[in-house]
């Protein structure tokens, strides 16, 4: 029942630096004159990486039995993917404006 292995200092701090590094990179990126869509995609990509690092090492999921990961994460991801369907509308909404004050 005791976890076979767990993150040692070396890993923990490298993850920490990794996260900080990514954050700084994001901030720098924010000041580049990129189109919003590109920026959004890149930032989200980086954030997902950060989230993955946190889940894997800080939240220790990497060292749990695979079945835990296999049941939790796909469920979450699936629901989130389904939720993105709503964006099909918001883009439409922009050019179906109706009332003027």
């Amino acid at each position: 029942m005791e976890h076979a292995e767990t993150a040692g200092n070396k890993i923990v701090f490298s993850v920490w630096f990794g996260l900080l590094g990514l954050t700084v990179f994001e901030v720098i990126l924010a000041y580049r004159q990129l189109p919003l869509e590109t920026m959004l995609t890149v930032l989200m990509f980086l954030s997902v990486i950060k989230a993955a690092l946190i889940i894997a090492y800080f939240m220790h999921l990497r060292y749990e039995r695979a079945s835990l990961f296999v049941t939790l994460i796909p469920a979450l991801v699936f629901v989130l993917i389904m939720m993105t369907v709503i964006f099909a509308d918001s883009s439409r909404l922009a050019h179906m404006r109706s009332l003027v004050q």
Partner: protein
Amino acid sequence: MANMPMEAQVHHHAAPTGFIRKYIFSLDHKVIGKQYYFLAIVSVFLGMVLSWLVRIHLVWPNVHIWGLGAFSPAGAPGGVISPEYYLSLLTIHGTLMVFFVLTTAPQAGFGNYALPIQIGAEDMAFPTLNMLSFWVTFLALCALVATLFVPDGPPISGWTAYPPLSAVGTIAGPGQGMGQNLWAVSIALFCIGSLLGALNFITTTVDLRCTGMTLMRMPVTCWAWLITAILSLLSFAVLFAACVLLILDRNAGTSFFLPSGLLVNGQLQNHAGGSPLLWQHLFWFFGHPEVYIAIVPGFGVISHVLSVFSRKPVLGYKIIVICLLAIGFLSFTVWGHHMFLSGMSPYSGFLFSIPTLIITIPATIISLLWLGTVFGGRLRFTTCMMFALGFVSVFVTGGLGGMFLAQPSLDIFLHGTYFVVGHFHMVMGVAAIFGMFAGTYFWFPKMFGRMMNERLGKVHFWITFVGVYCIFMPMHFIGLEGMPRRYSSFLNEAMQPLMPVHKFMTIAALITGASQFIFLFNLFWSMYKGPKAPENPWESTTLEWTVSSPPPFDNFGGKHPVVYHDAYEYGDVQNGKDYVMQTDPPG
């Protein structure tokens, strides 16, 4: 075993002494299950009375209802229901039934009571959390009922509470002030209660199964409760967010659901930038899984009961489990079929209709497997079995209505008509309620240690079964005529010829509703006067029938049951028994 001390502290809470800890703030899943059950009973009868008033107002708008005038001088002056009060009653009826009956009783009620015993656990994984989720739900119910007593009455925006009607406040109509706020708070609380309950159910099923109780040896009921819990966990979170945003829109001046330039009865609203569609998306993203949260526990109970009283194993146990999982999965992909005509992108409308029709495949398979289970059995027509058979009938009837509504092109005509009302009452309301009745007649001996009265039960069944067809079948017919729902009266002369049908449905509703008091009487009379129940009155195989009725505080009197058999070993007669208990030693 790092977790040993914690396991201990979780599962070995001593039997409480003293009334409060025993019956009010009890940690015992059996007591909490009963508490949920009675909360649902109160809600369902209140909801039923409201539906009576609604039906009466539709066909006899001017009739004086004794006492109602005193109860709500504003809504029903002199006991005559006003149109706005009609909408209020409708809203509270819907909310009560969907949330506090269909979501509590089958899952949190029977689930809480039977799940731990059926999997051979001593209690739920988190007893305190369990108690908490009940009392939060109870608060939610109080908040909802309170709307009946606030000055400007309950909200009139229906159980779906579409903005702007629900978001702009009193100016939108009576009940949209305090009433709507209470409604939103109530639902938000309810979400919290359900979330806590859900994670408790999942953890319990995963971690606390007794030795030998593999997942594939669990009764179908446990599978149903597990899947329902997963659905609740994933969907109520969304509704909770939606409610928070609604509350903010109403009270903090945000505009998540409110576009710019709204002119509500003469007053320009200073909201801007939101969209009512957003609420509809968030609401139905929860709303469709909710439908299955209501019905899947019913699936479980019915599969279980049909097998017990046909003295046959469930036909295709594995397949039923797979179908339940498929339904759970698909239920997150179909919410858009509530929004075909909502102004949503018509392409997504078309896409949503595909999984909507696909989800009928597992449902159809399960229904056929029920028929296959009954086939060639030795049916014992107890009241419980009658309701199980009734469930199959009404579920098929209601389900087939879905074939029409699942198609956007037919929905263009049928959307928002009585056809829809008939459909979802049949498939979600009545079917789920039949599941609850079956569950009650089945587990009552275990819950209260006494048998219910079969004769009264049969009377109750026959009136209810015929009654629901008389109420909800005609709704399909008048739906075909294009009769819109949520109308407090019909000005359109084309609708006048249909009033007799409405009268018929109202009378049927009054009679059917009245017959529910037979059930209520039977319930409480048997609780005290019924004959003592043996350990295993139905000759069933699952763990709850291996212990005394009612079970001891820790369910198994300190013994650790060990399971050697599947849940449904019926039929082959050996040493006088045609069934094998799950705990019978092998060989």
